């Protein structure tokens, strides 16, 4: 290891290894054997060859903020910490609107870079801290605040550079021409060649080491008028998400149970009182001109009026004005990426984050609500509508005290997972104890193909073993 990375970039001291042995979740901790800090691909090629020779696990790590135990080295091995040195923004292409980044680049880093140098461009940001890594979220199909328009972060991937199990450096996407390094302006598209990105997206690092990725940027529209929406019926948020998604006037909908909203504005142990809306939503809307904004708001209000005529009780308020007057902390949910301090103030955080069939929103809310009441835990649900209404997101998320409440919370997540999977939800960024549940329901043909691809891509099972029960 020292020969490859240099003595200052390798450690096996327990005190250095410990922070890499656990994350915020309930997933069991396990110590790695080494942590290495790479600077270039040559080092990684040597590492992969070495690890294949001696069958040593390699675990990719950027900033350690996932909520699924995905970088815990279940079988020991070597943590490759990309966050320390492979963290450069390599290129911003103003013309074709993309950013080429190394694995350690964070959302905050890219946002700052764009605001300072390309203020007319923006990336799509998740409800995550600024120090969370872009590549991990993109490769795991994470959410964005442009979700209602563009879908998940993986939908905005143009291309990747990957080191495969045999040490080959592979470029995927429009950057695939040429033998040596790709031109910086060649990372502009994912298609029309066979989509080899699928060999790496959502595989949780089990098929190769991704060393570069190109992500799409978007024009930053000058006018923003986000709306706060209040839902006074328990399931009113369901039809709203479906209808507003297909109205194609909003960038995103971040809907959450009121307990989440109360937590985010600083109420320590939030519960819902009579008269409070069970669900609220923050809806980013942007436009190029005031007239376009007026038209979008008119369509948006028509959606609500039409639903209310059919029996819902939904109200909208100007979000900037409301949050400024009544609680500036609420802007934290809108100005992404951001650290929701109250979500991270306990020692534990876990979730069941899932892609969801949007026609099941009401049933998901009602059935999980029963489970929350059964366990005496307030509902902490997040919902979204994605890509013009094509699908939804349903995410129960929990902060908890690891040493006192973990057992109770895990029992609840377990039961919620069963209900959601039964209703057709597909979890993402998923810990292996939940992929075990999925495997019981996935068709055998899919599983056989999955296993065949995995054994072809990683015959010695050195890449992040344990994920997806590999």
């Amino acid at each position: 290891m020292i020969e490859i990375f240099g003595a200052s970039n390798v450690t096996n001291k327990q005190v250095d290894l410990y922070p890499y042995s656990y994350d915020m979740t309930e997933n069991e901790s396990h110590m790695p054997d080494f942590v290495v800090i790479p600077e270039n691909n040559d080092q990684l090629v040597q590492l992969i060859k070495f690890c294949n020779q001696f069958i040593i696990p390699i675990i990719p790590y950027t900033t350690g903020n996932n909520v699924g135990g995905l970088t815990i080295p279940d079988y020991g091995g070597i943590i490759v910490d990309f966050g320390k040195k492979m963290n450069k923004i390599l290129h911003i292409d103003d013309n074709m609107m993309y950013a080429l980044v190394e694995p350690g680049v964070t959302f905050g880093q890219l946002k700052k870079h764009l605001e300072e140098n390309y203020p007319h461009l923006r990336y799509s940001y998740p409800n995550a801290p600024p120090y969370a890594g872009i590549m991990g979220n993109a490769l795991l199909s994470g959410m964005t605040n442009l979700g209602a328009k563009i879908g998940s972060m993986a939908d905005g991937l143009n291309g990747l550079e990957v080191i495969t199990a045999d040490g080959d450096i592979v470029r995927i996407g429009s950057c695939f021409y040429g033998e040596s390094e790709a031109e910086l302006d060649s990372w502009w598209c994912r298609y029309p060649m066979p989509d080899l990105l699928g060999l790496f997206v959502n595989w949780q690092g089990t098929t190769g080491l991704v060393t570069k990725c190109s992500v799409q940027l978007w024009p930053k529209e000058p006018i923003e008028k986000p709306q706060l929406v209040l839902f006074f019926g328990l399931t009113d948020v369901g039809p709203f998400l479906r209808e507003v998604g297909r109205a194609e006037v909003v960038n995103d909908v971040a809907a959450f149970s009121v307990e989440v909203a109360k937590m985010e504005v600083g109420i320590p142990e939030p519960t819902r009182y009579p008269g409070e809306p069970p669900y609220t939503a923050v809806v980013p809307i942007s436009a190029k001109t005031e007239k376009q904004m007026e038209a979008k708001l008119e369509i948006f209000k028509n959606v609500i009026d039409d639903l209310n005529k059919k029996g819902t009780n939904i109200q909208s308020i100007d979000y900037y004005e409301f949050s400024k007057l009544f609680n500036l902390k609420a802007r934290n949910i809108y100005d992404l990426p951001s650290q929701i301090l109250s979500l991270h103030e306990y020692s534990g955080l876990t979730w069941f984050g899932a892609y969801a069939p949007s026609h099941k929103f009401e049933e998901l809310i009602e059935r999980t609500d029963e489970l929350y009441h059964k366990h005496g835990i307030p509902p902490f649900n997040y919902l979204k509508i994605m890509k013009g209404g094509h699908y939804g997101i349903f995410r129960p998320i929990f902060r908890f005290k690891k040493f006192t409440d973990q057992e109770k919370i895990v029992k609840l997540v377990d039961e919620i997972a069963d209900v959601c999977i039964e209703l057709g939800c597909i979890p993402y960024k998923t810990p292996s104890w939940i992929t075990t549940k999925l495997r019981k329901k996935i068709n055998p043909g899919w599983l056989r193909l999955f296993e065949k691809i995995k054994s072809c891509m990683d015959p010695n099972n050195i890449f992040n073993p344990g994920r997806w029960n590999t």
Partner: protein
Amino acid sequence: MINIEFPDDLISLSLHTVFSYRKNDKKFIKAVKDWNKKIVLHIEPFYPVTVIFEGSNIKFERKEMDDFDLKLNIHINTMLDIAYGRLTPIQAMDQKKMELIGLEKDPKIMPKFFNVFVTSMSMVAADPNLNYFELNKETR
């Protein structure tokens, strides 16, 4: 010095935020100290909240108390219109977007009510700061 109870419902918390903005404002302290009134705010589409001014304390009850001194009925969007200067309270009452009940009990209550509630909201709305982490931590 005014003590403002930290509530755990949405509307009371919002009012807590507004009052806290003026916690060190001498005019505000003078207005609310020993006011000893119960003011009901029913902000539609939410629920009524009674704000209790008692000595040096401001407390909140998540209901309409029967012995209120003044009651305000208003929609949240009208409240924002007033706070941001698009509508005056008089215009709101003329247009029946705002209703005050109990004025006959104490004719002096209205100016003080406007100072404590409406002026405070307008001051918060006019503050150019949009970053919660730059707020005065002693007052908000």
